[in-house]
């Protein structure tokens, strides 16, 4: 029964974006899972310091960034659909929108970092802020890579239009951007929300 189900599925099932991007995505997910675990391990060692430090984060910035990335992720998903439907104008518009939201995320993060550093809260203040800067810093680096990938896809499609062979590349950049979004969802809950 199960084998038949798998065989039936394999007739139309696929790997969105191709195998390569998923190898990369799973590598990243494993590294971040390890970071999340180590963060919670150290949190248990010094709960009062972690709670006090968490209260010093700007909750509004975190929430706005979460909503910004959710909308940008939706926008990229719609853009990929538009590309497949050969609606290039809509695709370009949605990708531009997603890149803009990515830029908004970076600007908010810049203000958040600036405010923390001005208050004397740096990488060496305590374990919480060490994890905060490392995890959000690596994530921010991913956001920048994702924006660059989306910009490259936008430029290429704008110049050459729809090509069936390029669908996998468009999907791969989308998969990467969604990974950036899902990592932030977990980071937000661990750093800003966890009581």
């Amino acid at each position, binding site marked *: 029964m199960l084998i038949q189900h798998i065989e039936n599925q394999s007739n139309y099932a696929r790997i969105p974006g191709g195998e390569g991007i998923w190898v990369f995505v799973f590598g990243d997910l494993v590294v971040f899972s390890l970071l999340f675990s180590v963060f919670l391990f150290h949190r248990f060692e010094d709960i009062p310091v972690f709670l006090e430090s968490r209260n010093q984060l700007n909750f509004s910035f975190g*929430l706005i960034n979460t909503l910004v990335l959710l909308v940008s992720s939706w926008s990229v998903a719609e853009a990929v659909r538009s590309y497949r439907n050969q609606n290039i104008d809509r695709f370009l518009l949605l990708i531009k929108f997603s890149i803009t939201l990515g830029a908004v995320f970076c600007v908010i993060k810049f203000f958040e970092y600036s405010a923390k550093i001005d208050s004397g809260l740096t990488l060496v203040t305590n374990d919480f802020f060490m994890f905060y800067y490392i995890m959000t810093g690596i994530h921010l680096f991913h956001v920048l890579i994702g924006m660059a990938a989306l910009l490259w896809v936008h430029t290429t499609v704008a110049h050459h239009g729809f090509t069936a062979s390029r669908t996998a590349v468009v999907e791969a950049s989308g998969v990467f951007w969604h990974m950036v979004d899902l990592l932030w969802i977990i980071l937000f809950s661990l750093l800003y929300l966890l009581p």
Partner: protein
Amino acid sequence: MNHMNQQFELSKTLILILIVLVLLTVLSVNIYGEVTWLDSGISLLPFFVMWIALFKVGLVVQYFMEVREGVFLLKCLTTGWLLFLSVLLPVCYLGFFNRF
């Protein structure tokens, strides 16, 4: 025409998923109070926060990353990772590994 309708439906699905994700975000930032596990004193609030986040991740993976249309192995790997994390994070939170 039918094909066009199907495309429109899929788009509505993505909008619906976005709305659910936003509502879950609002829910996770607004849950207060101390719900304890069988009066054991262990607050369930942190677990709700973590599991809501992982449920949101699951929605992103299934609908935005289109894993639900993907091959069986991909579905297994992503679901496996999510289940693994939904156990690992609470276990780490409770300090299970700090005992060793």
